[in-house]
């Protein structure tokens, strides 16, 4: 095997498995690296490949290792790991062109598995680079004698020709709403808001710059302190952790006195959970989903791919003014034996204040005036977490405030619950939309007041109004623990980041989010009737058109005429003479030919001999030393051609 082919195969496989290196088990990554290096050295020093036995032992051992590592041989992670390992080990036994071909197909397959983990613009560019190297490797098989440069050129041409055709296919290939079969449990990684809340669960999220979703407002943009994106609602408290709990009796929510409608579009990043986010309170949704009795939106299945929907919310509302007793009872339940001091405080307030609304204000005033601070790194709390927080540490993040506020309310016999979600968002001026990041995760409280229904109360606003009005950075003084983007970086970096996000958003919308729905929208907007027959026929027409164009461009080389005018004219003359039965033999030199013609046709002898001598001088003589000028000769030759034509017509008549 050609060493250049081996090096390129090594490079291809290295490029193909590199993006996987980080999420593979460490020993697999290391093993692959070692095998690649080993193979490189063997090729470099012209050493023979290791024996079959050793390879079999290595393969069996690593497959065993994978089985032990994953405790299974099924699933995506295991599949990818196996593919990567087999491709690497296959490098050790390349004996024929068939092995190379198998490796190349395997490499293409591994490239596609990388899209499970990332489909960003960077990944796309990397894929193109990888494909270029893989195709160059591939070309080695059919161009064993060519220069590397020629192979690069050819690989480039093949890729560049394929790109417009791919574009046509991408736009017009009828999309089917997947999945075709059940996705394995681990098909998509999960990130983002969970459905439980304990001290520290949200502050962990606040370190992440990852995008949760993006919002385009179609109507007016709400004020920042009204951008409460409603997520999981938590009812049950066990002294430390809040959970959604279980509702035995479901009643559809009832909203009254709605006003201030907001229309917007949300592009939700996949989070592998079924809840969707909407502004408080959601009223309408463009996709099929359920609105629960506590005003959460749940989709039918976990969101495993980027999801787009339109929604309408009302910022002013009365929600469930009539509430079921079972629900109110749930909203008052407290775990026994926890936080005695807090209960005591609530009881004192209750004794002084009969009105629920005023008591809520009392509590908020307490948070505001008792020296509470807003921090991402609060000290740990003991068993009586709420007591600890309210009376000792007095430092915490939003989940601490929401949790202790709801506890206080329930202790004071006001129905209350915790609502988690996101607050605010960052405006992207480039793309005119809002980015809501994981660092915007927030928790607040809802209390039920008779006559008004469920009312949102955000205790964090009482301590750090900046968090509500601006963003996290405005609320937290010591920001070393915050994520970089949330820490107010310099303006230029911010602009750069916004531009990048705008591009990423376009990419997500148009490339990654190009599903059957978007395809329908787009093609309709182009004025096409969207049926699959139409799509397929347009696809055929588009492809045929481009392929015809490429053919014309590619085949032009075949009809390339010599650029030498003298040679052209000479060949024309020879053809003319051939027509009168004086064809030149392939072996005949110009002068010998002329002499033969002269013998056969004395009438043509003089001019043709002269022309032939001129031809020899111009074409084979020392440049610039011919007695005859090129122009002169051409004129002569043309005259002679006419002369032959005359003799032809004479013969004809």
């Amino acid at each position: 095997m050609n060493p250049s082919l081996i090096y390129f195969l090594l490079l291809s496989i290295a490029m193909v498995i590199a993006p996987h290196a980080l999420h593979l088990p460490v020993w697999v990554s290391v093993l692959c690296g070692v095998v690649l290096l080993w193979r490189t050295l063997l090729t470099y020093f012209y050493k023979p490949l290791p024996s079959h036995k050793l390879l079999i032992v290595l393969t069996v051992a690593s497959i065993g290792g994978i089985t032990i590592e994953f405790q299974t041989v099924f699933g995506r992670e295991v599949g990818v790991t196996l593919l990567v390992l087999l491709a690497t080990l296959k490098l050790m036994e390349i004996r024929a062109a068939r092995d190379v071909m198998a490796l190349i197909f395997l490499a293409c397959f591994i490239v596609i598995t990388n899209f499970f983990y990332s489909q960003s613009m960077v990944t796309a560019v990397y894929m193109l680079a990888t494909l270029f190297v893989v195709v160059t490797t591939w070309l080695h098989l059919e161009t064993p004698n060519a220069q590397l440069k020629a192979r690069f050129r050819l690989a480039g041409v093949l890729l560049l020709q394929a790109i417009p055709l791919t574009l046509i296919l991408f736009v017009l290939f009828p999309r089917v709403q997947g999945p075709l079969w059940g996705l394995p449990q681990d098909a998509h990684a999960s990130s983002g808001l969970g459905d439980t809340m304990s001290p520290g669960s949200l502050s962990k999220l606040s370190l992440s710059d990852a995008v949760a979703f993006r919002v385009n407002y179609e109507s007016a943009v709400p004020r920042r302190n009204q951008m409460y994106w409603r997520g999981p609602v938590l009812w049950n408290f066990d002294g430390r952790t809040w959970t959604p709990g279980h509702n035995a009796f479901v009643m559809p929510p009832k909203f009254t006195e709605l006003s201030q409608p907001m229309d917007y579009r949300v592009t939700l990043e996949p989070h592998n959970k079924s809840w969707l986010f909407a502004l408080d309170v959601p009223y309408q949704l463009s996709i099929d989903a359920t609105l629960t009795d506590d005003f959460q939106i749940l989709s039918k299945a976990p969101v495993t791919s980027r999801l787009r929907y339109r929604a309408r919310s009302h910022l002013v509302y009365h929600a469930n003014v009539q509430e079921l007793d079972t629900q109110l009872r749930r909203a008052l339940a407290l775990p026994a034996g926890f936080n005695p001091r807090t209960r005591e405080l609530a009881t004192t307030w209750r004794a002084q204040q009969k009105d629920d609304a005023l008591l809520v204000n009392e509590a908020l005033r307490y948070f505001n005036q008792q020296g509470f601070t807003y921090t991402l790194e609060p000290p740990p709390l003991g068993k009586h977490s709420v007591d600890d927080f309210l009376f000792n540490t007095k430092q915490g993040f939003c989940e601490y405030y929401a949790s202790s506020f709801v506890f206080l309310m329930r202790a004071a016999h006001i129905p209350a619950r915790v609502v988690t979600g996101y607050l605010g968002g960052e405006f992207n001026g480039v793309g005119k939309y809002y980015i809501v990041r994981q660092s915007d995760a927030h928790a607040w409280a809802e209390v039920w007041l008779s006559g008004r229904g469920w009312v949102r109360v955000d205790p964090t606003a009482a301590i750090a109004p900046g968090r509500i009005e601006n963003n996290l950075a405005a609320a937290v003084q010591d920001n070393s623990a915050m994520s970089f983007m949330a820490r107010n970086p310099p303006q230029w970096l911010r602009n750069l980041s916004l531009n990048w996000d705008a591009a990423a958003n376009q990419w997500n919308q148009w490339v990654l989010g190009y599903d059957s729905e978007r395809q329908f929208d787009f093609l309709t907007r182009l004025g096409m009737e969207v049926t699959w027959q139409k799509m397929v026929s347009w696809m055929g027409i588009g492809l045929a058109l481009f392929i015809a164009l490429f053919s014309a461009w590619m085949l032009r080389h075949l009809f390339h005429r010599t650029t030498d005018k003298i040679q052209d004219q000479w060949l024309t003359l020879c053809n003319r003479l051939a027509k009168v039965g004086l064809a030149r033999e392939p072996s005949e030199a110009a002068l010998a030919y002329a002499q033969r013609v002269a013998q056969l046709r004395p009438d043509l002898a003089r001019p043709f001999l002269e022309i032939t001598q001129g031809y020899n001088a111009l074409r084979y003589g020392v440049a610039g030393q011919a007695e005859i000028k090129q122009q002169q000769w051409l004129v002569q030759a043309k005259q002679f051609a006419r002369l032959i034509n005359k003799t032809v017509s004479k013969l004809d008549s």
Partner: protein
Amino acid sequence: MLSHFKQKFRIWLFRPKIDQGTVTLTQRRIFILPTKQGLVLGGVLILMLLGDINYVLSLGYVLTFLLAMMAVMSMLHAFRNLAHLQIRAGRVDAVFCGEPAQFMLHFDNPSTLVRHQLWLRDLQGNKVSFDLPAQQVSQVAFSLPTHQRGWVQTGRLSLYTTFPLGLFHAWSYLHFDTQGLVYPKPLPFAPLPVSLAFNEAGKNHVAGEDEFAGLRAYTPGDALPRIAWKAFAREQGLQVKQFSTPVGAALLFDYLHTPERDVEAKLSHLTRWVLDAEAQGLRYGLRLLGSELPADHGVAHRDLCLQQLALFNPPSTMTQKAQP
């Protein structure tokens, strides 16, 4: 019935006939079908597409389509690799049986494209690969092993390529009627028939052993005992001792005077004699059953003799007589 139509279709499609003069590979003469690897890639692409649909991998679609479209374009590249070549059959040098016959073919590539990795293959599976530089006439030797004396032909050759990705097999048929002559394989060694030597006066004479006349370069077929081993030891290469014979002396090699019983062995024996006699500068004649070449010498005469031997067709009655 079906096979009849199939046959007709093949004839219509491939137009089997002998090619004359220069063949230009026009569109009509080039055929393309996917290779086995091409079909495998097709399967892999379908699997990928199912995965893309199932897992909603937009970039997966992109990669799948890119690969598919590259495969489609590679078909055009394969076609272009053959298109508009001009092919002419060249000479075929006569060889001794057992040596490969070299059929020369002249490939004119007038375009500005280098043609990569073309293959010529005959029906027996003999093949040769070559590249054709741009704007040049290249000579390609298609070598065919020989097993039998007489005329040898390549039959229909297929000129094919799987450039650039090995996914498509583009081919064209070339059927030139050029033929090469295969001489009988000379016996490794056979002393010249001393007793048969005669001169024009009728007086017996020891042929060609008289005077040492010098050395000349070894050519295949020379007798081993005539090799000048001393010269070889002096590192002067393989040389053959030459002897002169008195002018006028001539040998007549007669088919019936060869000791073997088998026709082919007899011819091998005669071939050896002809080669040795020519190498020694002797005059010699050849008498086969029903034909006779008068004594002469020189390369042309030798070739004539060899041709007679190559094409010798024993009358059936004679062969019967030869087998008692």
